[in-house]
């Protein structure tokens, strides 16, 4: 049991900022995180560039930086500026990348 907890705790800690901040909010508004990920991928291509764009947008959201369509922004508005500190924000972005990245998933 102790061993199981030792394995589980890091996962919970790592996934925490993403799950309790990003997923929770997007689920409430019925906005697909996966679709947004592929929009980022379509615009920014590489891991480094996607992560940099996500970080910049979440820190200071503007219409210009947003990848969502104008209709969605009009309907839901821009996301509020994040309250996460830098470390948690980067953890959340990493978790997001790992969850939806295409590397190793194409057959």
């Amino acid at each position: 049991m102790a061993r199981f907890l030792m394995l589980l705790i890091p996962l919970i800690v790592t996934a925490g900022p993403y799950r309790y901040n990003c997923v929770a909010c997007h689920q409430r508004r019925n906005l697909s995180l996966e679709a947004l990920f592929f929009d980022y991928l379509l615009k920014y291509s590489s891991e480094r560039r996607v992560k940099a764009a996500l970080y910049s947008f979440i820190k200071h959201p503007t219409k210009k930086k947003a990848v969502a369509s104008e209709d969605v922004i009009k309907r839901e508005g821009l996301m509020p500026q994040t309250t996460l500190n830098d470390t948690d924000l980067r953890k959340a972005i990493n978790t997001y990348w790992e969850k939806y990245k295409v590397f190793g998933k194409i057959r």
Partner: protein
Amino acid sequence: MSASNATATNISRSEKRTLFRFLGLYTFLVVLILGLGSTIYYNLQKDLMLQTKRLELEEFSKELIDGLKLLHIYFDRYRTYPRNPLYRSAIYDADKVLIFSTLKDPKGVRLDKVIYTTPKHQIQYIHVLDSYYLGAKYVVVEIDEDRAWFYTAWRNILLGGGALLALFLVAGILLARLLVAPMKEAMSLLDRFIKDTTHELNTPVGAILSNIELIRPERLDSSTAKKIRRIEIAARTISNIYKDLTYLTLHHQIASDNQDVDMSALVHERIEYFRILAESKRITFQTDIAPRITLHIDASKAARLIDNLLSNAVKYNRRNGTIRVMLKEGELRVADTGIGMDETAAKEAFKRYKRFDTAVGGFGIGLNIVAMIAKEYGLRVEIVSQKGKGTEVIVQWRVS
């Protein structure tokens, strides 16, 4: 310096040397130009092949991009990469990280190019995307290279290049002959002049010498006797030159009368002949001549050989100098105390018309004649010289 390799310098030999030098340079330049032309032709053929294949590869890349677009949209349901047996492909992100590949060797891909051939004979075409489906910025499409163009290009290079090379070489030989013609003409003129001059010299020189011999010096006053002696020296010098020129121009027409020549007597006789010339420069002879030394040779040629050695020893000696003549079994040495020469000059000494001091008379043919006679009779001639100290010529022959 040995005379073994420096025998008669004739027109055809120098002509051949010039011809070969010119042809060597010409061939090098022709090969260089043909090599350059072949490289340009080869690259043009390759570019032509690549441009032809590019249309085909562009079509393949469009098809692949359509497949990627669909995969991007339906990635949550469908994850199979678009494949086609006609080509292999790969996708790379904006940081040139491989996303997926069906290429044979995805490591060697050059994303900064558009189309190129790989060392493993594949053609790779790079298409840069505007919309990065699945994050792909670079799409690589690969097909196997059809080597027919390569063999055709090489066949054309070899056949065309070979034909052009042959054509250029023929033109080169004709050019070289044109180049050599003036030199050949000049040499021929010089030889003709020497022949004509030689012919005209014989009678007057003979007349002067025979008449001088008839004069009795004791009947002359000292002043006239001195003048007559000077005339004799001059006449003997001309006579010597005449004999050299005759030998040079006619030696191949005169059959050799080889016999056992008494070299001891001949050397003594020739020293006496040159003594009068040597005295004019106050040069003294030191002799060490062994008796009864014989050599199987034409007597007149042996005299020519000795005369030229003695003549040079007088000509290139200093006033009040000495000439040391040594004859022993199998060896004749003539050494002077004159100006000497350096190693380079010694190497050139046997060449015809080579003169080392234009202040003294002569045509530069003496040692060339020595070398010719030495070659004919298998004699070894060596020059040992030191600039400013003197020169020694050593003639050696095998004693049976």
